[in-house]
């Protein structure tokens, strides 16, 4: 990773942002932290040298990718690496600085107010042993203490202390149960925090040892003592890093520098508390509790052929990734298809992924197995799952729902990405949701905030998908005349609705359904159309130039429409559009406005999705056609199964959206007129 690459990595690499369409401004809550951050980076010059200011990061955070960009630690690691030992010495100075008394006073407040359940979840969710948590170990102790003070004893937390020290008492119950009912007797208890269990036979408070809580509180020492201990630990750590760095080779030393940088970062944080503890506490809340949400690099912004980056992401990811075989050179930067092992992995880890809401988990698995597909369906299922998650959400004490819920949603999103890369429309929907959460009024009660969010999601589904489809149908039906021959490709729900509506209106027309392997989605559509009594012709994409002679209109759906008018849609769409352009047949693209994106895409290489290569090697119903069996054994053979392609705007006659029918060159108008306020937020 050279420094030249950095700004591209932070801004989405596949996106060229058009100048005047920048993302939204940082909301006021966040803007507070900006001066503090710049101040911090001014303190450590190495940080400044390579890391962009945090405001940049915030913007990308809010842009299409919608998944959190990692904190600039890695970035600063590079800087440190280049500066070598000097950086190490600076940080050690800071380590001392942190521990000076007045700083300690500052830092203690936000730490003590942590909710431990959040913390424990984060911790248990980190499946990779090579976690970087140990830098924060001194904080975690504090949290355990505070947890036992606020008594948030729940089963989950108990599970998070699998081998806690503390003896187990058998809670023998008074067997005053009705004879038909059986008495439950606690045979063994995982000991953690004191909790009151209520049972049938009467409320019995299980006698419990204080467990960790007691052990910790007994250890509770005076502030001065703790400070001294920490100081020693930090100094030792810094020294070790420093020494190790000198000895190791370049790669290893960059690892060391990373750790030092992390330390420097954590050193900076307390120093910020001088400026205002509220800022610091917010930042800490953001940073600590769910690492996995924060650290997952957005897949859309990640180059999967960049080995070191993939390695890093893999180490951090909440759910693992698997190596793909024989990937195609040109498409190595995309997330490789890995359905089989990924599904097995997720299934076996079902009960480990406790921090993922069950409904989100379900939707994720449905994406993975392909039982939910299609832009609208996927987006809607995701929103409904989020709705359920919001419904079950309760803000942990001492946290603002806006912050905590956003990080929760982010971790859900990173889970969904692990199942299948997000579509652009889903990115927009997530952006919408996060924006609504960020704009929640701090003064309203939690239940009110939740109901607001729920109705917001409902509204989004209703307005942007359902009503939008109806309006599009209304517009597009006017373009169908008696005697038309319409060509359709793929399986777009909105196109299907248009055809059915036109048929209901009594228009006389014929349909040519063009299909392609391996998905053969046209078959399902064909079946529905024929059942409704429409007259259809079914053919494959190979015959398109033959059939195009008789066609008078082409109706296509789209996965996304980009601001230069490029249509991002099911692979094969570009081919259909080009042939019909050659034959001078008008091409109408039907797409809801929430699928529009401000990016500019010139080809289908830099942004795409890879499917299972095996499905193109097998032909259904023709078992004799097995020439490609064991294809992965051949080193010089690669199979490519692309999901999407990009149709240049030249081949498109008209785009039908709920805002009206527009030529593809007018897509930016939609952004200008309906963007920002109405389209997404």
């Amino acid at each position, binding site marked *: 990773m050279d420094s030249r690459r950095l700004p591209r990595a932070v801004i989405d690499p596949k996106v060229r942002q058009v100048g005047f369409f920048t993302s939204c401004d940082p909301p006021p809550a966040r803007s507070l932290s900006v001066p503090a951050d710049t101040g911090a980076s001014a303190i450590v010059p190495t940080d400044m040298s390579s890391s962009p200011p945090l405001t940049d990061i915030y913007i990308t955070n809010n842009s299409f990718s919608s998944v959190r960009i990692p904190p600039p630690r890695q970035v600063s690691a590079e800087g440190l690496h280049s500066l070598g030992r000097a950086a190490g010495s600076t940080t050690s100075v800071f380590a001392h600085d942190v521990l000076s008394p007045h700083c300690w006073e500052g830092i203690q407040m936000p730490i003590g107010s942590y909710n431990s359940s959040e913390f424990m979840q984060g911790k248990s969710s980190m499946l990779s042993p090579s976690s970087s948590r140990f830098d924060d170990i001194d904080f975690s102790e504090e949290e355990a203490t505070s947890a036992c003070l606020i008594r948030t004893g729940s089963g989950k937390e108990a599970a998070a202390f*699998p081998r806690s020290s503390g003896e187990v008492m058998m809670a023998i119950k008074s067997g005053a149960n009705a004879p038909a009912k*059986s008495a439950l007797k606690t045979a063994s208890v995982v000991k953690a925090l004191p909790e009151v269990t209520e049972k*049938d036979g009467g409320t019995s408070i299980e006698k419990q040892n204080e467990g960790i809580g007691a052990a910790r509180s007994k250890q509770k020492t005076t502030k001065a003592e703790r400070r001294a201990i920490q100081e020693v630990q930090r100094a030792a750590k810094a020294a070790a890093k420093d020494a190790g760095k000198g000895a190791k080779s370049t790669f290893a030393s960059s690892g060391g520098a990373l750790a030092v940088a992390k330390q420097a970062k954590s050193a900076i944080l307390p120093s910020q508390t001088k400026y205002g503890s509220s800022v610091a506490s917010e930042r800490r809340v953001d940073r600590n509790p769910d690492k996995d949400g924060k650290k997952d690099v957005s897949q859309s912004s990640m180059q999967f052929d960049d080995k070191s980056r993939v390695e890093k992401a893999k180490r951090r990811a909440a759910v693992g990734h698997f190596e793909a075989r024989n990937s195609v050179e040109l498409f190595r930067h995309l997330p490789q298809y890995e359905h089989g092992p990924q599904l097995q992995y997720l299934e076996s880890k*079902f*009960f480990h992924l406790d921090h993922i809401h069950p409904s989100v*988990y*379900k939707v994720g698995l449905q994406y993975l197995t392909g039982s939910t597909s299609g832009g609208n369906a996927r987006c*809607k299922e995701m929103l409904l799952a989020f*709705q359920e998650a919001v419904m079950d959400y309760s803000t942990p004490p001492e946290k603002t729902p806006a912050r905590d819920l956003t990080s929760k949603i982010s971790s859900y999103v990173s889970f969904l990405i692990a199942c299948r890369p997000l579509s652009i429309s889903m990115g927009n929907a997530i952006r919408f949701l996060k924006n609504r959460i960020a704009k929640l009024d701090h003064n309203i009660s939690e239940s009110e905030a939740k109901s607001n969010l729920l109705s917001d999601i*409902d509204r989004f589904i209703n307005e942007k998908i359902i009503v939008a489809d109806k309006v599009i149908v209304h517009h597009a039906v006017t373009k169908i005349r008696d005697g038309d021959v319409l060509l359709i490709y793929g399986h777009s729900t909105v196109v299907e609705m248009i055809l059915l509506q036109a048929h209901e209106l009594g228009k006389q027309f014929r349909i040519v359904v063009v299909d392609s392997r391996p998905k053969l989605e046209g078959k399902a559509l064909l079946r529905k159309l024929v059942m409704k009594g429409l007259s259809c012709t079914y053919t494959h994409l190979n015959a398109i130039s033959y059939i195009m002679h008789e066609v008078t209109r082409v109706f296509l759906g789209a996965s996304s429409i980009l601001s230069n008018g490029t249509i991002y849609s099911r692979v094969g769409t570009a081919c259909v559009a080009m042939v019909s352009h050659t034959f001078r047949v008008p091409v109408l693209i039907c797409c809801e406005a929430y699928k529009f994106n401000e990016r500019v895409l010139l080809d289908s290489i830099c942004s795409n999705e890879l499917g299972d290569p095996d499905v193109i090697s097998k032909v259904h119903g023709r078992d004799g056609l097995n020439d490609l069996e064991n294809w992965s054994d051949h080193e010089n053979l690669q199979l490519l199964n692309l999901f999407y392609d990009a149709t240049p705007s030249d081949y498109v006659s008209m785009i039908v959206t709920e805002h009206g029918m527009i030529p593809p060159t007018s897509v930016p108008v939609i952004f200008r007129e309906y963007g920002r306020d109405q389209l997404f937020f």
Partner: protein
Amino acid sequence: MDFQVVVMAGGYSKNLVPLVSQEMPKPLLPVANRPVLSYVLELLEASNLKDLIVVVEGEDVALRVGGWISGAYVDRLHVEVAAVPEEVGTAGALRAVAHHLTAKDILVVSGDLVSDVPPGAVAATHRRLDAAVTALLCITPVSGPSESVSSVGKDKGRKLPRANIVGLDHTRQYLLHVAAGAEVGKDIKIQKSILRANDQMEIRADLMDAHMYAFQRTILQEVLDQKEMFHSIKHDVFPYLVRTQLRSEISDKGAPKNGLNGVDYTLNGSEPASEILTNRTHKCCAYIANKSKYCSRLNSVQAFCDINRDVVGEAGHLSGYSFSAQNNIVHPSAELGSKTTVGPQCMLDEGSKLGDKCSVKRSVIGRHCRIGSNVKIFNSVVMNHVTIEDGCFIQGSVICNNAQLQERVVLKDCQVGAGYVLTVGSEYKSEPLSKK
């Protein structure tokens, strides 16, 4: 993940006489010198399921099992033991603990399962397909788990019938038909309506029901409440749910639909054509375990021997022990006489003593056994504190705790009950031997 786990541990199983006794109920029968229940508990623990309800038949068994669990799983699991009267059946046992069940879905696991199939896979399939019930099916072991002298209706540890008939749809996800082997006569009757709704059905006889079910709680409780007669999960509840999947009486009130908004679902038009199973009221699904996974149930004497052999042999990773270079497990405190050989796939536990010129092959020997000289033990299980005197020959047998074999006893395919004494020179073949 909103799952609750109920482990059906059972009690004294009639099928396992004479192995089970007052001191040794079925959940505590040793498999590679660990109680069989521990395999399930550890499987669940590995899946991060730490809140368990263990249902045991009989008060005194419950005391024993509870005592063992609290000793062995201190700090590791949160286990609650419920005692139910004997002969209430698995369905009755579930009814008895029903008031403790609150989660959205319930995972019911048989306590005699020895397997490495992750329960999460079953649960994930259940969730993904939004099923009413999901069953774990696995390939029936080749050796055939039991002789079909079954006594169906003895609910715990009933014999697994020889051929289970399972009907699956073409995606092998939905269960369309189940019939336990004992109920299958010459003909299989299949509901026309189900067949019609699915176009095609795949009938398989090589799948075994592993007794791990994920139920939707509301549906399960409704069935248990409505059908007072239902005795066992496998024979009554589960087939009932599969049978009624198209016309369920428990219907929608059991399964709360997504009532949170007025958005209709008709937009989701992109389902594969074959999956338009329109009028299905609840889905019955199956998770078919991979062939490479081990899965077996200890529900007969034969299965007990098989599992013991497998766990120290081919499925060694289940036992939790590390094998030596000779592919066997010999505790350091075990003493071997001169010219004594312990073959591969054997286990010799703490404090056992073998005399000279013994030969042990594919067998499990428990703690503190005293074995004389010139003893041959093949394919057998010897539990704890057994005394075997010189010149005995033991093949394919199970010898329970504290039994005593005097000199030159020859046993073939026998089961010796706890504390039984075999006199000098006696020979037995294929007999259960125990104190009356």
